[in-house]
């Protein structure tokens, strides 16, 4: 049989300092760009404003488009090419314009449409997509998305706490939180537009990242039962990670195949989603190895297990166990 990463004995945990250095550097870089350019690039849904995707018969002069809009009183709009040379998106979300939409969200888009129709001739411009969001709806969606993320985090956290003993749970939660943080840094650094779809990607990642960690921790729990006398926790961790490595790589490959197909083929609307997913899947795999494990060791060293209490819970909580609730001697963790 064809095998990759079979019977590997990499010492992952040993390199946690390098890993920590990389991810901290990445997060800091994200924070710095946040500090420099300020704010997240929210989509129209969240900021309120108007987005129009316009198809011109012939490739237009962007300067002409801009001056046409300026003349119509739509100043400060963002005009970007979208896909082909004849297709553009126009975003109008100046404070003034958003405010104007409080009285009726369609006002600005009507102005843009009539201005472009007049400039280029009615048949030569097609408005293939219009999104106009009033300021109230925008702020509601924003708080809704925030609530959704917090709630999903809480539920995931609760589930992890229920499935593992608190040390495992805490390590898994922290590692998942790390993934979300790094993904935010990525979004900020590459200036990805945060729309509801991107929020959906982040929430999916939340689940994906937690589950990656769960799979390794599941194995750690199992290996703890079989561990030889005197084997350190980090050795058990390394063993568990190595054993699950083929799975991690394979799953990563198949999920990546999906996200890459979306990224390359599915078109501009879905592209930010695909970018965030592709990056997030990578980070989830990375963190389940380099972040969750070291965190677990760190927590175990701070709050060592006593022989009687949580060991048995940690080991037996999973339903893969034989049902024997009495901790055997070999399962106990030596106090480190």
């Amino acid at each position, binding site marked *: 049989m064809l095998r990759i990463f079979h019977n590997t004995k990499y010492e992952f945990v040993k390199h946690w300092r390098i890993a920590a250095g990389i991810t901290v550097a990445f997060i800091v870089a994200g924070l710095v760009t946040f500090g420099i350019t300020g704010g997240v690039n929210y989509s129209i849904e969240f900021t309120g404003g108007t987005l129009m995707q316009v198809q011109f018969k012939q490739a237009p002069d962007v300067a002409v488009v801009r001056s046409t809009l300026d003349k119509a009183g739509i100043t400060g709009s963002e005009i970007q090419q979208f896909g082909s040379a004849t297709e553009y998106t126009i975003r109008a979300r100046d404070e003034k314009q958003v405010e104007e939409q409080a*009285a009726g*969200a369609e006002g600005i888009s009507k102005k843009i449409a009539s201005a472009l129709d007049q400039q280029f001739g009615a048949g030569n411009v097609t408005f293939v997509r*219009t999104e106009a969001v009033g300021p109230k*709806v925008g702020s509601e969606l924003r708080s809704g998305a925030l609530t*959704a993320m917090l709630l999903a985090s809480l539920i995931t956290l609760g589930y992890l706490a229920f499935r593992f003993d608190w040390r495992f749970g805490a390590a898994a939660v922290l590692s998942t939180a790390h993934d979300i943080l790094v993904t935010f840094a990525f979004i900020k650094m590459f200036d990805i537009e945060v729309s509801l779809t991107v929020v959906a990607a982040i929430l999916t990642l939340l*689940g994906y990242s937690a*589950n990656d960690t769960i799979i390794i921790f*599941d194995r750690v729990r199992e290996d703890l039962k079989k561990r030889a006398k005197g084997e350190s926790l980090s050795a058990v961790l390394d063993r568990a990670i190595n054993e699950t490595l083929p799975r991690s790589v394979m799953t990563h490959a*198949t999920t990546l195949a999906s996200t890459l197909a979306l990224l390359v083929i599915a078109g501009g609307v879905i592209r930010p989603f695909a970018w965030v997913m592709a990056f997030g899947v990578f980070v989830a795999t990375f963190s389940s190895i380099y972040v969750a494990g070291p965190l677990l060791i760190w927590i175990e060293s701070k709050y060592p297990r006593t022989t009687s209490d949580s060991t048995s819970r940690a080991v037996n909580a999973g339903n893969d166990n034989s049902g024997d609730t009495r901790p055997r001697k070999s399962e106990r963790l030596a106090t480190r």
Partner: protein
Amino acid sequence: MANLKYRILLIVGLFAASVWALFPRTVVERVKRDGVFVYDTVRRVPLKRGLDLQGGMHLTLEVDESKQAVVDKSEALDRALKVVRQRIDEFGVSEPVVQKAGNERIIVELPGIDDAERAQDVVQKSAFLEFQITDKTQAFEKVMPRFDEIARNAGLSAASEAKTSGDTTKKVGVTSLLTQQSDSAKDSTGKAVATTGADSGAATPAAVAGGLFSTNVQAGQIPGQYIVPEAAYAAIERALSLPAMQDAMPPGKVMRWGVDSLVSGTQRFFALYVLDSRPIITGDVLTDARPSTDPVEGNVVQFTLNNEGARRFKVETGKHVKDNMAIVLDQRVVTAPVLNSAIGRNGQITLGGGTLQSAQDLALVLRAGALPVPLKVAEVRSIGASLGADSINKGAIALVTAFLLIVVILIGYYRFSGMLAVAALLLFLVYTLAVLAGFNAVLTLPGLAGFVLSIGIAVDANVLIFERIREELDHGKSNRLAIDEGFRHALSAIIDTSATTIFSGMVLYQFGTGPVRGFAVTLIAGLVASLFTALFVSKTFFMIWLSRTRGNQTLSI
């Protein structure tokens, strides 16, 4: 062995049910034929496409309180919902959605609409119809000095000062305008009225004190009608909305603007009407309204009144023969014809230069009744049908590509077992789509992305199991034992995996809007289906293989 038989039966049974659920079927729905919506039978796969995939318009409406606070918003919204729903039903859209969202909003979804502006107009028009007699007592002229004073106190004369020099030309403009444009006057008597109107207009000493009103407002061609040049329109409109102005209004009168502006040469003018504030009747006594084309009048809307309305209309119009009656829609005068005789049950509204379509739309909104509260648009999204079709194509290609890539990875790496996984994956696709069809879920663009993604995640379960089986085989276990152990040990991880992702999906469903909800639904449907295919279907495949080979052959994994 009996166990295996039942397993196979269940899988095949579910597959058959899924195929049946997805089989193109004949449904009656509204479809567009030559630009007109008709009911017809269509054969199609029973999967609903969201607006972003088939094109259309999504409107979120809320009560407009900018003019007037609404006490019981929820109740008002309920009534508005009924009206909007009736209008949409008559507007002719295939499978529209009109629903209340919370206590504040109405959501309208119109698939396949290509004239977004017109659709929005139909939904949003208040359609409050009033019939009011125009003033013939020159009440406006009497209060004009007072109006000027109020405007001056509010500092609202500046806008017109600069234009005073052009006053003479303006007057000429008005006169010629009056002779050209006589469509507001209903018949031959209208002409006579027009001429008198013009005479008196010229005779009025317009620029006495340079006040906002006395300088710019001139009497029009019919009693109670006044003409305002475009330059002064904004200032006068602002002045009229001043609170002090309401007190200075001639008693029992109201002022309303005309619907259209009139053009004469390079100048544009607006008509301002002084009307009896008490309407003869309002739109609620209408029982029917139909568009029609009159050879003389152009496009008109003919209406029918109910018994009580007809009686009142007859009495009132009888009293006002030779007067002008303004037909006021949403506080704007559409037309103000002369009453030649008493009108009973049937009447008509002349639309001037309006198109037949605008007559149709007006008839439609009048039939459905007035909105009890004004509505404003809080959010609008419209997507062209071609963009939607493009999204479907790209999504489908992405789906197939992702699937093929995964097939290559699975078979390349796991060989025979990989083929079993691919078979399970095919079943997964069919089951997931069937679940979506069964729950009447809406497929959106993010939903398609979720579907593609769920393939990747579904494979994870198989990978977990296969890797575990390999390990067990490495430990020297027999095929049968290794497969058993593999499934048993992978179980908890697979359940955890699905659980965490399903939780996120549920939260997303709760907080997301249309397209994102579609994503949440496909993701959840995909995960549920993958639990079944990975844990049950794949295992059954292995069991079949075991029973065929009696476990003697080397397992290709």
